[in-house]
């Protein structure tokens, strides 16, 4: 396999309730921005990550649609689905297409248009990432599934509602420095704990929002990247990992351990030849505050059961030992489910280029992204580094 670089990144200028932008426009905007950023005049192939445009927008067949609306009809293009890990899975697919030598320049992105349906429609669409016959049938919602993981974590390790709230406080603080964030305001622990309870112990401010958005990256071979990079720092994908776990939470021996994230990270770390101590920052899948706590344990940044204290103690804040979710994370930046995994890589490249402005991690040389579907039924991890 050959080395793969990321030569272009693109995002909508702002995520949120974007009523004037359609599914196709959202994706085209991010993809065209990535192509322009890369400085290329064409791509050889494309992967579009999307969880459920059929339920959200009545539209499948996104490979054809997006190639058409990018002005590149004829382009080989495929939609990739792995629930909320679709964006990360799309980038992984593109990585292997370039690494294998099959293509030189490949675009990978993700999109979700979530606000054309009401709250109940969105709840239903998102629930399809869980076990339809054995979880959703019984009236279990996604917040309730993560709430049950939180109760397990609290019961066994003494994690508190304040610990969860501190994740939201930190990520909103980071998001306040991100012009693209959907909710770039700060929150306090008191506000989180005083907000409406959705599924005990998760309040509405423990949950990521419903978001319209897209993100895209352009990958190419390292040789080609060196021709195109100019004076900019060159970023490579040093490691990639993906893994699955049982679709139903109840099938797992440990109800608050993300086995798919642990396995995906192990693969990615081994490929990159590094470990958790070599990482300068992380973008992780904080769809709920408890998720970030479980993820930093599974990635090996803290010991099992110690994730609850990380945000409170400043370990994962900007300026801390391992800044997590400098973009604001899913919590503040927004969570257009199919786009999230690609957007994490956009943030990673922005940090590694030193272009993150007020939220820049000083001296960032290597970062990790972790994107997951469902309650961790799938995970995709990328290790990014400056060449």
């Amino acid at each position, binding site marked *: 396999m050959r080395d793969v670089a990321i030569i272009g990144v693109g995002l909508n200028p702002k995520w949120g309730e974007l009523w004037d932008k359609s599914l196709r426009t959202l994706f085209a905007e991010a993809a065209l921005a990535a192509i322009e950023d890369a400085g290329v005049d064409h791509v050889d192939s494309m992967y579009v990550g999307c969880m459920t445009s059929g339920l959200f927008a009545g539209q499948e067949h996104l490979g054809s649609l997006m190639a058409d609306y990018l002005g590149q009809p004829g382009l080989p293009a495929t939609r990739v689905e792995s629930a909320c890990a679709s964006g990360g899975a799309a980038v992984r697919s593109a990585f292997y297409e370039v690494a294998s030598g099959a293509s030189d320049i490949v675009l990978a992105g993700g999109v979700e248009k979530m606000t054309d349906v009401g709250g*109940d429609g969105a709840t239903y669409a998102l629930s399809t990432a869980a076990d339809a016959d054995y979880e959703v049938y*019984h009236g*279990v*919602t996604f*917040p309730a599934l993560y709430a049950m993981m939180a109760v397990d974590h609290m019961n066994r390790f003494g994690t508190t509602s304040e610990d969860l709230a501190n994740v939201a406080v930190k990520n909103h603080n980071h998001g306040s420095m991100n012009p693209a964030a959907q909710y770039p305001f700060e929150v306090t622990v008191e506000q989180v704990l005083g907000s409406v*309870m959705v599924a*005990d112990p998760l309040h509405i401010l423990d949950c990521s929002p419903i978001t319209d958005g897209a993100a895209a990256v352009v990958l190419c071979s390292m040789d080609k990247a060196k021709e195109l990079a100019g004076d900019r720092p060159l970023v490579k994908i040093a490691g990639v990992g993906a893994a699955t776990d049982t679709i139903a*939470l*109840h099938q797992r021996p440990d109800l608050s351990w993300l086995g798919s994230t642990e396995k995906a990270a192990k693969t990615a770390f081994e490929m990159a030849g590094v470990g958790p101590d070599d990482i300068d920052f992380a973008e992780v899948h904080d769809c709920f505050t408890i998720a970030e706590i479980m993820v930093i344990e599974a990635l090996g940044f803290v010991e099992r059961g110690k994730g609850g204290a990380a945000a409170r103690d400043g370990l994962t804040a900007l300026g801390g030992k391992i800044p997590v979710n400098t973009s604001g994370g899913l919590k503040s930046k927004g969570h257009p489910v199919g786009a999230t995994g690609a957007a994490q890589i956009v943030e990673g490249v922005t940090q590694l280029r030193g272009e993150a402005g007020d939220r820049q991690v000083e001296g960032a040389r290597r970062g990790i992204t972790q994107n997951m579907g469902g309650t961790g039924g799938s995970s995709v991890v990328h290790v990014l580094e400056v060449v």
Partner: protein
Amino acid sequence: MPAGYTREIPQRYRLEAGKCKKCGAVHFPQRLACACGSKDTEPYVLPSTGKIATYSVVRVGPSDFMDLVPYVVAVVELDDGTKLTCQVADAAPEEVSVGTPVTLEFRKVNQVGGHGIIKYGYKAVLDRFVE
């Protein structure tokens, strides 16, 4: 009744599961292949008693369950170690904690729309309701 409903009846009404003949792992629902590599499984019926492994209280529910909120959902660990997800019927949130003993009973789960079918299945009930 739609086939998507009727084919789940053995599992939902009678807790019919499967067991791997090679390693003894219990699968609910029954599977064609076990993680141990065996494809040799046999029918097995789950025990109906167990305890709460974890739980939550759904306060914002899907429209099909709107008239039930707030309702308690749980992962129940049955006496043989098998875990499944269901509602805890007729329970106030403060009555439920990790380790609370429960029994699975045949209950109405919901009724979809004005003309839809009534859906049944298992729910966990607290011991004070069990005769």
